[in-house]
């Protein structure tokens, strides 16, 4: 008996390492559905897909995916993906990593990828914590919350990646949530056919670590709580993109632009 997504998985490595109820699994399976849709529609083939990740819980995805994959060093998935795509532009290159990997250590690379409108699909699964290493604060952790490196409460202010990217040149910027997997699939499907940078932030639950910091007793409790906060707008304005924990998490497609992607621009220039 095999799951319809099994052909995209290294099934000999399952069950995966993510905790019971971890949102990453939800996001990854929605992503696979979107890829599957494109492949069955003949837009590209299974061999054309490449997945690159850095380090962290989300980044473990590449260990389980049956594509050409790269599990590189912390924060450096985006430059690796760029090198890959520049040499083989026909590849569909997807970067899957967490908030720490992409917004903290990898922040500069994200900025320049967005500045260039580089042709990648970047999926940042934001669980607002450094899960793999035991629960340290992340640049996206909401204020006041206990983490292991802010044990007296988080005095840090979180970054709003959506707003940051709106100041740059990305073609597509969206936010989804693991509480609404259908939207994840829809946005990833769209991202894979966009020219330029397609960035999707997926707000996720980390029941074992962040959930504990927040005081939730189960994955279901955390999930339901997040679902209460999530509001969907088809095209929300940037002014509404701040995540206000306990109050509002607005998902939707914030930015959709028809812009020339970097690959087209560089090939055009250099072939002269």
């Amino acid at each position: 008996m095999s799951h319809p997504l099994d052909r995209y998985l290294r099934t000999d490595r399952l069950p995966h390492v993510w905790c019971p109820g971890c949102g990453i699994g939800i996001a990854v399976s929605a992503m696979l559905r979107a890829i599957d849709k494109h492949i069955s529609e003949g837009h590209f083939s299974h061999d054309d897909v490449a997945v690159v990740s850095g380090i962290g819980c989300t980044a473990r995805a590449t260990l389980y995916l049956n594509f050409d994959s790269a599990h590189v060093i912390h924060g450096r998935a985006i430059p690796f993906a760029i090198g890959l795509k520049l040499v083989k532009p026909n590849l569909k290159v997807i970067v899957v990593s967490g908030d720490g990997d992409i917004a903290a250590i990898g922040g500069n690379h994200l900025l320049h990828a967005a500045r260039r409108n580089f042709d990648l699909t970047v999926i940042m699964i934001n669980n607002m914590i450094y899960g793999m290493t035991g629960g340290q604060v992340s640049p996206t952790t909401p204020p006041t919350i206990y983490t292991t490196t802010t044990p007296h409460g988080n005095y840090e202010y979180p970054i709003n990646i959506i707003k940051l990217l709106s100041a740059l040149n990305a073609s597509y910027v969206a936010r989804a949530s693991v509480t609404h997997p259908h939207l994840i699939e829809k946005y990833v499907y769209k991202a894979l056919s966009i020219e330029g940078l397609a960035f999707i932030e997926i707000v996720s639950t980390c029941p074992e670590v962040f959930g504990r910091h927040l005081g939730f007793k189960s994955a279901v409790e955390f999930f339901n709580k997040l679902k209460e906060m999530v509001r969907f707008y088809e095209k929300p304005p940037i002014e509404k993109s701040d995540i206000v924990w306990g109050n509002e998490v607005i998902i939707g497609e914030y930015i959709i632009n028809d812009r020339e992607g970097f690959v087209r621009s560089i090939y055009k220039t250099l072939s002269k």
Partner: protein
Amino acid sequence: MNVLVERCKECGLCINICPKGVLVRGEEFNSRGYRYAVPKNIDNCIGCKLCEYICPDIAIFVVRGEGYEG
């Protein structure tokens, strides 16, 4: 509805999301010590696939029969 029992981690998300109460926590343990979800009330299933989409372990898939009305 098919549950790949060895992948289930007893997180309860499928049970929580099912609008028809089809799934319950089972009595049997898989080899990792989790009591996997079981579609006890399968007759109530409307084929919405919410369980399939919400499972983080890619452990559930639903095959829609001829009676499915989109």
